């Protein structure tokens, strides 16, 4: 039906509205991005003033935070932007956050690799060394954060106070290869007694470090390391 007068606009009104809204929100996004970039530049240019005037610095940081700039992007550790320690303090805060949020899933053990690739993905300049240094600084808080190494190169961060036994560490080593461990795998690879395998695995399940899987073709129970979950996403990327 052809409509006349003002009514003619009704039919196409919806389309115009959504188009305008989309355009506007895109413009806002661009402006916000630009503003964020400028703020970072500003921080770079006026570094000394920011460093000397704590009140100014606090206000500036608050502003950055409220418009969505990750503080980690503001710091430049090579040029001692602000004070170099601030950069590591920010990492510390992030680490505590991440560990708390993921503790129920991974039992408080997370690999540095996973931390950097998955959780610090937004802040590209964070290296494993930075994380290690931040963990060292956390040590003075006595919060039980500790880094340990398996297979001589894979580093893990432990955020729960219970220390891993060497047997548990060995199981994690096996898991880091296949994603899971099992009684027979441990018996074959580590030449452990059956009882030792069973006890270690069960304890790790009780501590929340491993998830069980009883549907592996009806043979035996597999014990999976939850870090597998994010590992598989990294492979997809």
């Amino acid at each position: 039906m052809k409509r006349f007068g003002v009514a003619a606009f009704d039919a196409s009104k919806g389309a115009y509205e959504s188009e305008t809204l989309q355009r506007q929100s895109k413009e806002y996004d661009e402006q916000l991005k630009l503003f964020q970039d400028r703020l970072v530049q500003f921080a770079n240019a006026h570094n000394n003033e920011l460093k000397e005037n704590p009140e100014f610095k606090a206000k500036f940081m608050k502003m950055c935070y409220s418009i969505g700039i990750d503080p980690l992007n503001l710091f430049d550790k090579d040029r001692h932007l602000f004070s170099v320690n601030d950069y590591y303090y920010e990492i510390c805060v992030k680490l505590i956050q991440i560990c708390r949020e993921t503790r129920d899933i991974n039992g408080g053990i997370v690999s540095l690799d996973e931390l950097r690739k998955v959780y610090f993905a937004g802040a590209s300049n964070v290296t494993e060394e930075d994380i290690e240094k931040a963990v060292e600084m956390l040590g003075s808080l006595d919060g039980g954060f500790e880094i340990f190494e398996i297979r001589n190169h894979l580093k893990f961060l432990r955020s729960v106070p219970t220390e891993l036994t060497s047997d548990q560490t060995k199981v994690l080593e096996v898991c880091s290869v296949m994603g899971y461990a099992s009684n027979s795998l441990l018996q074959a690879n580590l030449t452990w007694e059956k009882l030792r395998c069973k006890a270690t695995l069960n304890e790790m399940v009780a501590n929340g470090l491993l998830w069980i899987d009883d549907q592996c073709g009806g043979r035996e129970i597999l014990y999976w390391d939850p870090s597998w979950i994010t590992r598989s996403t990294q492979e997809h990327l």
Partner: protein
Amino acid sequence: MTVPPIYAFPPLYTRQPNAIIRNKQIDSWEDILLTTARENGLWEIDTEGKFTSQTTQELPPHLQGSIFSNESIGRTAPPLFVKEILSHMLTKGSLVQGGSDTTSAYLVLWKNMDSWASLMLEWCETTNKLGQVVTLYELTNGDESIGWDFHGMPQGLAARCLRLLVKRGRATMLQDEYDRDIAVKVI
């Protein structure tokens, strides 16, 4: 469709003995169910975890079976565990009894009823429907609700949400000769 990576994690399909982990596991399942329903515009699920589609449009192949069964990794959550997950969701309110044709089906609420009611109110306000009689069909299937999240919602569920507006004194329901809700007037 995006499934969270944990959907491919084999132990997700075995009920975890550790209670803390199991809570997390059940939360993950709830997340998977709600995300799937939202992204595919689905509203009903049966007691085995099979989504039913209201439209004639066929479900994507991976959703034709139960959501609790993942063929690509050969894992299926056992019926008892499925029951536990669904009853957890019922208690939390993200699932409610009362699918359309069978008594054994659940409605999936990927937004809670209050949010749905508010959204419908918002729709009436934006499309200038205040004070007018709108049929439930118009509301859930009409051209004017395309692009709104409740488009495609079963009319029974829509009526239940609208009743919240009635309670708030913002709407009146109209029934047909069989006493079924067919239309609403929002004021």
